[in-house]
Structure formats: structure tokens, C-alpha cells
């Protein structure tokens, strides 16, 4: 059964479900730096530069394929963000109908170009983040953020939010499954029951979250203490990071 809950859980479990490939063995800091650089460069394309945006959006898929991470795995997760983008982008098609020359004999309404650009940017950026999440655990990403001097409370919040979201979705899935087992003949869940289901899921996730926090405290977790920094990248990794960022900058400015 594939439903929004399963999809949400699949996104949060990206690291567990992915083949980590050779990228899994690389220090987290270079991966985080290259991903951030990619995100900044990907969103810097102007709204009518569809061709460049599309080629740049293909990079995570090409890189993922080289590192034995299936493009389909990335595309499946990236496509979950598309409904939100389509909601925003479709309005542009209505409001911006001025033709823009894309090729010498091809003009497309500006709104359509903006929509295509948004779709490409979404597929590219979400795939890049998915690639990072697939090859780097949340603990490693947190450690890398700490070494980039992101304030400790923000990193701890990120870790706890990640765990709490997963718990909430898992609890909700359990409740929904139990509901369907006792109401096999019903199609879907009536609206009147959703309030109770969501409330129960939050309460149960809260209880489980509390138990987990107790267990963390017993193992000396203290949100006020700085998180440990990851091992320093090797010189080869540092060199590869610089080259990768330079290559991304080069592609950004030399792509059509």
C-alpha cells in the first residue's frame, strides 16, 4: 500500500533504504559543503533559463548513477515535492502569457518557462539533498553542521525534529492500519475520525518521544553541550571538494 504516510516515512528513512555506495565512505563535511554549493548555484538560475536549469538539475542524477545510487530512487523522492511546486507554478501560466524566445524559432509563454524552471530546480535540489541524506546519516550531517559553526541548539533541534517526525508518522501509520483492519469494508477514513486519529498519533508520538529522551538522558545526552565534530577530511577529500565546487561554479556559468 503506497500512501502519503508511507511516502513520508520513506523520505525520512532515505539513509536506511539507500545503497550508500562509495560516497558513504566519504567524510560528511565535504558532502555537506558540495551539496550546499549545489543548492545555492541551482537556485541562482534566472527564471527563464530553462535549458541551463534542466542540465544543472540532471547533475545529482548523473553523479548518483556514477556512485551506484539509482536515479529512480532520487526521482521518486524528488517527485514528492512536485505537487507543491505545481500549485505555485501553474498560477504563473495564467498570469504570465508573454512569449519568450527560447531558441531562434521557438517562443514559449513566460509563465510556462517559469513553471518548467521551478520543476527542474525542485527535482535538482531535492535530489541533491536526497543524495546527501542517502549517503550520510543525520548524526554525521549534524556533526558536519557543527564544524561549520552552525549553532548547537539549531543542530540539536534538527536532530530531534527528524526523530520526532519519524515517530509521529510511524504512530499514525500504526493507528491507520489498525483502523482499516477493524473497518475492512470502509473506503478510506471518514473525515469525522481524522481529528481523533491525528490527536492520538501526536499523543503517542509524544509518549514515545519522552521515553526516547529519557533513554538519551541516561546516556548523558545534554542539549547544551556542543556536539562532537567529525573527523577532519583527508587532503584528497579536501582537494576533491574544492574541485567539485569549482566544477559546479564552472558549469553554472558556462551552461547555455
Amino acid at each position, binding site marked *: 500500500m503506497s500512501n502519503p504516510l508511507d511516502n513520508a516515512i520513506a523520505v525520512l528513512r532515505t539513509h*536506511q533504504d539507500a545503497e550508500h555506495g562509495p560516497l558513504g565512505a566519504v567524510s560528511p563535511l565535504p558532502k555537506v559543503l558540495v551539496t550546499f554549493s549545489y543548492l545555492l548555484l541551482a537556485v541562482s538560475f534566472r527564471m527563464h533559463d530553462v535549458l541551463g536549469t534542466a542540465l544543472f538539475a540532471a547533475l545529482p542524477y548523473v553523479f548518483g548513477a556514477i556512485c551506484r545510487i539509482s536515479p529512480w530512487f532520487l526521482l521518486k523522492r524528488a517527485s514528492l515535492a512536485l505537487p507543491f511546486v505545481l500549485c505555485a507554478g501553474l498560477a504563473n501560466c495564467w498570469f504570465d502569457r508573454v512569449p519568450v524566445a527560447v531558441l531562434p524559432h521557438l517562443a514559449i509563454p513566460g509563465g510556462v518557462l517559469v513553471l518548467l524552471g521551478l520543476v527542474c530546480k525542485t527535482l535538482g535540489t531535492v535530489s541533491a539533498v536526497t543524495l546527501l541524506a542517502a549517503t550520510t*546519516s*543525520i548524526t554525521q550531517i549534524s556533526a558536519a553542521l557543527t564544524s561549520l559553526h552552525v549553532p548547537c541548539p539549531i543542530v540539536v533541534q534538527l536532530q530531534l525534529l527528524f526523530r520526532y517526525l519519524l515517530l509521529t508518522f510511524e504512530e499514525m501509520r500504526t493507528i491507520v492500519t489498525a483502523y482499516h483492519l477493524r473497518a475492512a469494508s470502509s473506503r478510506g477514513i471518514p473525515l469525522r475520525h481524522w481529528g481523533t486519529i491525528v490527536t492520538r498519533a501526536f499523543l503517542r508520538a509524544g509518549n514515545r518521544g519522552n521515553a526516547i529522551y*529519557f*533513554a538519551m538522558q*541516561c546516556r*548523558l545526552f545534554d542539549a547544551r553541550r556542543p556536539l*562532537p565534530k567529525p573527523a577532519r577530511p583527508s587532503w584528497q577529500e579536501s582537494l576533491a571538494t574544492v574541485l567539485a565546487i569549482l566544477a559546479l561554479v564552472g558549469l553554472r556559468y558556462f551552461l547555455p
Partner: protein
Amino acid sequence: MKLSFQNATIQRDGLTALDQFTAVFDSSNGACAILGANGAGKSTMLAAILGLFPIAEGTILLDETPVTPQNARAIRARVGMVFQDADAQLFNQSVAEDVAFGPTNLGLPPEEVQARTTDALRSMRAEHLAQRDVTRLSCGEKRRVSLAGILAMRPEVILLDEPTSDLDPRACRELASLLQSLPAFQLIATHDLAFARRTCPQCAILQKGKLLASGKASELLENQSLLEEAGLA
């Protein structure tokens, strides 16, 4: 090493879970089973040692150190707890990350954390699970990994809350033999009398938050009327 409860009263969710509870657990006597029916206060008693619930009255001492919020960190560095629900304890993504969580919080250098993680997994016969996802383990594996996470902190005392609650008989036997091989003093809250007999020379029986009896397991566990009174038989 001694753990003493002196007239300790602990309230939980508006109910008195431990009521003027007095007992002494001495590591020189060997592992001690904490027995009692559901709701007798076993889990609360263990959690109270780590300062997870405020003590309304009385004191709890680990040797000479009282359990207070100020001393919580020092106490938790010496006492480890394996929770009843392994899913509450295992929250990192991989087994190795989860086992390394405690030693990392102790502020140890990365090489020492790695060495302790490997040692703890080896002693729990779980080295092969190191890179596995914690949510995709069997109940027996989860229990062993939870215990490895505590062992990696090298505690003097290990508290185990219902360690056999979701294990099959073979996994129970394996866990019992693993526990017997550990050097740390163990307090094991359970209502599994066979497991208590196998692992603990001492036992204490709780009833409604009070100590009903304590002494040698071989004697108390043969006392049928006592077990019936405690709701264990």
C-alpha cells in the same frame, strides 16, 4: 558498591509508585532480581536511581552520593539502564552509531569511542550488526544492541527493566548467559521467575511500592505463599 533507598517516596502521574521504600543493594552479594506484579513499582524504582523522577521524600544513595538533579550526570556515568522497550532506547540510524552515542557523550576521543563500540558489540556477539539499521533488528538483537550501548559506557551498575518481555525462550537463555558473563553489578526488574532464578543470586520482592521481602533468590523463590501474596504465582 552500595545502592541504598532510605524511606524514598516517588510519585508518578499523580500516584504513589514508591511508598517509603527502604532497601540496600550490595554489589558484593551479586546480581539482584527486583520482582513484583505489574504496577508494583519496579520500573519506577530503577528510573529513580538515575534521577528520572523527582524524589518526593527520603533519599537514594549510590555509595555516598545522593541522587539529586545536581549529581545526575555523575550518577548516569556510573549507572546504565536498559529500558523495557528497546525501540525507546535505539534511536540512531545504525547500530554502531547508537552504541557510540553514550561514549561520545562521555567526551571520549573518537578512537576510544570506536574501540569501546567494537568491544561492546563483540561482548554482545553483535559485531555483524554494526552497520544495520536499528529498526530492522529482531527483538533479541535489539536487546543485545541496547545492552551493548550501555556496556560501551563501562558502567559499574546496570539496571535492566523487564529484559525478557519480548524474547523467545532461546533468546532468554542467551541473554541470561551474556548477563552472567558481565562484570558490572546488575539489578534486574522482572516478573519472569525462571529468568530471575537463572541470573540472580539475590532478589527483592516489591508490592504496591513497598519492599515485601528480600534475600537469597534460592529461598524466596521457593516460598509459594510469599509469591502468591506478591501476585507472582
